[in-house]
């Protein structure tokens, strides 16, 4: 590490703070341009997210699925795969859980067992949809991005068919959503003042820890990294490359599926079209923002969740469209990635990743880029 070098440290801190400052400044300029006070907006966002424990519960309810998909995406990115299909994998998980919620006849007394079954079903659904992307990629050479986009569309069509067909409400059937699921199937709130589900929070933390250990301390994690960096070499070094890629899709699919189940079993209480709510795509941003580092995923996901949850208040308090928060968030991601690239090109010595730092023979490409 370069901590001993004050100049390098200064550059690193600057590159951490500058993109945040710039995106905030542009955001503030936008707010001023529509005739509002930026501080008002900050206040509204803050109150929208943290005014009381109910609001905080809302943030957590967004954080749970977002963190789950982000952890899954770290796995697929590690294997060099762009799992755009994560959104569809959430939806497929939601569909599987919805089926179970409607058709598995367990009563209130067995609710915890039912919840486990539904979550497992959701994981299987997500894995199934992830496996399809993986099989298309591995067996037929279909790029996972194209496969993912197609499967996202397909699962949406399936969900709309189910909602307006076999699963439509008995009265007033429409494409709005199914009937609310029976109470035993729904995940319970911790309390009315903190309306969130503790079991799921525990599950997220467990998933985070398990994946962290798996990535760093197991052969599987190393295989993922090897396959992501150079599939051909990995094969020749004896890595089962196809199985490794597939496992990444399965793990990500399972986590996305569980995230999807939370949307239908807690957030909405029924199945609706697009129940995944773009959270999968948001997870891609979280992971890109962190350059695929798992450690900060829960924290950044929490920040994203807070901003988005808080933004609902913009409309009520300031008559500003809540999409403003999305704009702010987009600006932040854009500038962080931009500055990351700039730092990589112009100050490679100061990159946080120790392995690429000093005291080593640089490759030609890094030398060509080297600044005096």
């Amino acid at each position, binding site marked *: 590490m370069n901590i001993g070098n004050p100049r390098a440290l200064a550059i690193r801190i600057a590159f951490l703070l500058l993109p945040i400052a710039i995106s905030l400044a542009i955001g503030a300029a936008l707010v001023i341009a529509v005739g509002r006070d930026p501080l008002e907006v900050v206040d509204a966002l803050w109150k929208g997210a943290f005014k009381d424990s109910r609001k905080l519960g809302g943030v957590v309810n967004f954080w749970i699925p977002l963190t789950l998909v982000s952890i899954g995406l770290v796995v697929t990115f590690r294997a060099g795969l762009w799992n755009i299909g994560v959104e569809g994998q959430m939806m497929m998980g939601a569909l599987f859980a919805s089926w179970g919620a409607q058709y598995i006849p367990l009563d209130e007394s067995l609710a915890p067992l039912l919840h486990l079954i539904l979550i497992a079903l959701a994981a299987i659904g997500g894995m199934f949809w992830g496996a399809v992307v993986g099989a298309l990629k591995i067996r037929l050479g279909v790029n996972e991005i194209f496969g993912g986009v197609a499967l996202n569309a397909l699962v949406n069509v399936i969900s709309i068919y189910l909602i307006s067909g076999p699963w439509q409400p008995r009265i007033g059937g429409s494409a709005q959503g199914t009937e609310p699921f029976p109470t035993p199937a729904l995940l319970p709130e911790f309390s009315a003042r903190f309306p969130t589900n503790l079991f799921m929070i525990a599950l997220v933390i467990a998933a985070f820890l398990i994946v962290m250990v798996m990535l760093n*301390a*197991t*052969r*599987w994690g*190393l*295989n993922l*990294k*090897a396959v992501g*960096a*150079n599939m*051909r*070499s*990995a*094969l*020749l*070094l*004896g*890595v*089962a*490359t196809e199985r490794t890629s597939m496992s990444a899709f399965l793990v990500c699919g399972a986590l996305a599926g569980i995230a999807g189940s939370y949307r239908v079993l807690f957030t909405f209480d029924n199945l609706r079209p697009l129940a995944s709510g773009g959270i999968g795509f948001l997870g891609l941003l979280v992971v890109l923002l962190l350059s695929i580092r798992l450690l900060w995923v829960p924290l950044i996901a929490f920040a994203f969740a807070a901003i988005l949850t808080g933004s609902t208040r913009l409309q009520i308090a300031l008559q500003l469209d809540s999409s403003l928060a999305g704009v702010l968030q987009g600006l932040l991601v854009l500038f962080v990635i931009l500055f990351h690239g700039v730092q990589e090109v112009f100050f490679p010595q100061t990159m946080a990743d120790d*392995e*690429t730092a*000093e*005291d*080593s*023979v*640089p*490759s*030609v490409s890094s*030398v*060509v880029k*080297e600044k*005096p």
Partner: protein
Amino acid sequence: MDIELRNIHKRFGAIHANNDINVRFRHGRIVGILGENGAGKSTLMKILSGFQPADQGDILIDDRRIDYKGPTAAIANGIGMLQQDPLDVGAFTVLENFIYGGAEGLTLKRAQAEAQLSDLTARFGFELDPHQPIDNLLIAQRQQLEIIRLLALGVETLILDEPTTGISAEQKDILFDALRRLARDEGMIILLVSHKLEDVIDLCDEVVVLRAGLMVGEMDMPASDKDLTSALIADTKGQLVTMMFGEELDAQSRPHYEIGAPVFIADKLIVQDLRLDMQPISLTVHAGEVIGLAGLGGSGQELFMRACARIQRVNSGSLHFDGNNITGASYRQLFRRGCVFGAAGRLEEGLIAGLTLIEHTALVADDKLQIDWKSVAKRADTRIDHYRIKGAATDNIEQLSGGNQQRMLIGLLPDDPKMLILEQPTRGLDVDSARWIWTQLLERCARGAAIIFNSSDLEELVTYSDRILVFYAGRVHELPDVSRTSIDELGHLIGGEF
């Protein structure tokens, strides 16, 4: 133009790659840059050609101090370098590639460029079809293209890094003729980085020798004024080796081991690709046996090896390994049974840029789910020691020099394989490193491993093989008794005289 390098220093961490180099290159001279792997030759040439800056020191062109940054600026100053792996753009045609490096302004003057291209190719006896895609060219042709591209850019000094690796004897003659004419007729400076002493003696007017970052000697070569006799070549070679290593190396011979039971059988194997129709090949390899594949690049030996390793489709015939039919098996299945393939392109096929030496070691360590990083690190250190790799266990593999990458690649081979299929196992290595690698490989033979390897170095083939298969345009000729074959004879066979 004359070039002078003054007090050049370059450090990579603890390694002093160039330590106070002072040397003068005069116009019209062909100069060989010699040294074992890691001696600092490539570093020096990269500094001269602008690919990396020196830490200290001056470059003077015609006694004028020049300060340039980047290869483009070096070319503008008349210095161009031909990389070991030609840097060109695969999907382009020859002509497009030629234009690509030299275009100024937005319009590409196609007709004019084509005329210039054919003019230059004709002048040097090169064979380049302007409308061929680059992907279809041989390495030698890519080099030729790169040379004329640099010439068209007005380069007066041409640096070549291991240009004879992977090209045929015939192509080498064409290349050397062109280089001689450039030096004699046009007064260009030609700098040749090479491990192949025969080439250096054949082509160069003088040599500069580096050892461990220091310049340890200069010497005039006899080529310019005397006819080369084999005695003179051997004598000069001895002097050069002494300068490079500080001591003269004996010609190596290998011990021969008990040949065991058959481990690998290819029966009437036919493989094909777009450019080559192979004749059926039948080969039985026994435990402890070394099979050398000779032939010009692209004669079919690479296809055959890859088919044996199950990473190339087999058109017909069958393969058996260790008693099992593996004709339809995957490489991974072979790997698990003890057959390992080592490809020639280290960082493309074999090693993984971005992973450390420790991580590489862990990849091949075992199949246990949990990785004990401490013991893996210890293992990596043992290998670094044993294979004399210059680098730390925590270095990323791409930070090592090419020769050290090759040592690591060999170090990653299992200790007791049943069979090794190796593409050019000592490509780009100096004599000493190459011998070291062979010592390691032969130890595995002694324990019963069979080896199939190819090489463009005839001496290597004759020294280490029990049997040699010579490939020419998809035809195959077997030499059952290598001890009765001379390098000269093998050279003729490679040219298709069978």
